[in-house]
């Protein structure tokens, strides 16, 4: 039950990181997912990955604050937008709770925890696939990486150093993204000098 609650909070935080207007809140949401994964790893009896994960979450938060936060614009809400956002948020909360419940009910034995990890990966990929803001895309990638770490520990990898690889990727990505925003702005749809 505690695992389901922890994952529900992390998935909600991941969706919030993608949806919130203010990037500062995204950073805190990503940090919350990072710390949540560390708690999960500790509960699974993997103190080494948990410690590394905690360090990674701290350093990534610091890196985001230094590189990406200065590139974000101040919060601007249009009239009436707040209500529609609240309705959307309520819908998302209900969907997540329902998804976690279904996962717990239908999955055989302990496999529901794998499904929860997969949901967290998908919550990260959601930002990458549907958000136009480069900063949100970076946040999504980092969250998907965190979810992968949770899944590894779940699978029995108790001594892993993979959080360090994730940390290196997150720091390098935020650095490249901040340079790119300086030149071309944060809207990915407007970055079309190269056409794939």
């Amino acid at each position: 039950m505690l695992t389901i609650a922890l994952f529900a909070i992390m998935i909600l935080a991941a969706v919030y990181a993608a949806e919130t207007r203010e990037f500062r809140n995204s950073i805190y949401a990503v940090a919350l997912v990072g710390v949540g994964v560390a708690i999960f790893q500790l509960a699974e009896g993997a103190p080494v990955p948990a410690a590394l994960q905690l360090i990674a979450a701290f350093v990534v938060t610091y890196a985001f604050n230094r590189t990406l936060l200065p590139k974000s614009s101040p919060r601007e809400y249009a009239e009436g937008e707040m209500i529609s956002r609240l309705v959307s948020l309520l819908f998302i909360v209900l969907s997540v709770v329902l998804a976690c419940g279904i996962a717990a009910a239908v999955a055989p034995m302990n496999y529901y925890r794998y499904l929860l990890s997969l949901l967290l990966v998908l919550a990260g990929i959601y930002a990458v696939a549907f958000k136009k803001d480069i900063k949100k895309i970076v946040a999504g990638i980092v969250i998907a990486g965190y979810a992968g770490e949770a899944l590894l520990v779940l699978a029995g990898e108790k001594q892993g150093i993979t959080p360090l690889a994730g940390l290196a990727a997150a720091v390098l990505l935020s650095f490249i993204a901040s340079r790119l925003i300086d030149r071309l702005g944060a809207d990915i749809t407007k970055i079309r000098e190269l056409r794939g």
Partner: protein
Amino acid sequence: MKYLLPLLIALPLLGAALAPLFCRINRRSADILILLVTLFSAAIAVSFYWPGPANEAIVFHSRITLALDGLSRLLVLAASGVAFFVAVYSTAYMEKHGSKDLFYSLFMLMLAGIYGVILAGDLMVMYISLEVAALSAYALVAFGFETQKLEASFKYFIMGEAASALILVAIGLVRAATGTFDMAEVSLRLQLAAPYIKAVSVGLFLTGFGMKAALFPFHAWLPDAHTAAPSPVSAMLSGVIIKSLGVYAIVRIAFNLFGFSSTCAAIVVTLGALTILVGGFMGIGQWDIKRLMAFSSVSQVGYIALGLGLATPLGVMGGLYHLFNHAIMKSLLFLGAGSVEQATGTRRMDELGGVSGKMPATWLSTLAGSLAISGVPPFNGFWSKLFIIMACVQTGRLWLALVAVIGSVLTMAAFLKVQRHAFMGQLKESLSGIKEAPLAMTIPLLSLALACLLIGLLSPFVVSGLINPAVAAVAAGPEYGRIMIGGIR
């Protein structure tokens, strides 16, 4: 012999650490360091073929597990050979680009990661090495921090890290199903795993590594990244990275760990055929030489996937032979494009013309590369494409053979365009002052061109000595586990 496996990874790591120090003392000493590291690596790769048989399994087991068989021997040979020539080329090419110390460090890190992926006998070693190689590659694409480079690097980064997340999830599922990361054990225990776990994890692996290999529809990052990167990096990306981090990993995991199912084969064949056509048609419309070559890489990866996906001995042989050939051909072509760009200041074919008279060595070698990649005899590309087409006919799928032939015609048309617009015709006035590239840049070009010719002329020996041991390793399928456990430890 088994200690050569960790040494192969340790050497470039040492090079990465020492390169900045050597650069501070003297730039020439850093050049020599990088040349020595890549030369020793290539010597180790060659030594893997002697004295024992080329398909002998060698395992290094300590805190990490590394393994060598016929397939990894072939990949190590291709990677180290290309890396050596790219290193020679870079000593002159990077003079004008600055930050040579950083470039060398990242290049060496990337090489260590590539060797790690190829030699991995453990899924975690494979994943960590994959990340090391990929992170270095993202940084190398962004090298110089110009806007286009940043954009290309960011796209590559996002696709690459999304792929890594899927691969990590798949590794987690495999670990959960088998209780181990050791690939030999995994291949044995996976036979007893629940079918749905196998289906989900092989699907995730195929998607993740398919993105790294730039298979259709995950190919969009490749033309941007390969065009924006400095030419030696493009040569490594196209010649080695997409093969070791993408195609090799697919082969190792799909064939040797899971056993290649008919569903998997159908997916790989279909994606391969589509990739040939998409890369071919997109390439022919390009006016940027490197971009054209990048789309050609997409197309050639399609050939490799097609051959492997057929899963017949002839198809696998054609696929692996083309993988080896393409590493040489495409690194040659990208290095040639780099020489032209550095001499003329442009990559656009409509701004070039008549360069062959001023840069004969670059022209001749690029011509050899163009003929080879188009499948013209007696160059190496002819044989590998012929084997793939024959394999398609052998399995009764004539439409696949037709796709392969159409792809080859498109490749030839694209490279004829390069020859006609960039090298032939009247020399433009603005280009009258250009000179042939320095010796350190032309020697790798001529050597790789010679390799294209010799590998074609000596095809029977290459097939029996290098390709067949790799085919045997792939054909072993999940017996890989037993072979590795019974190998030299």
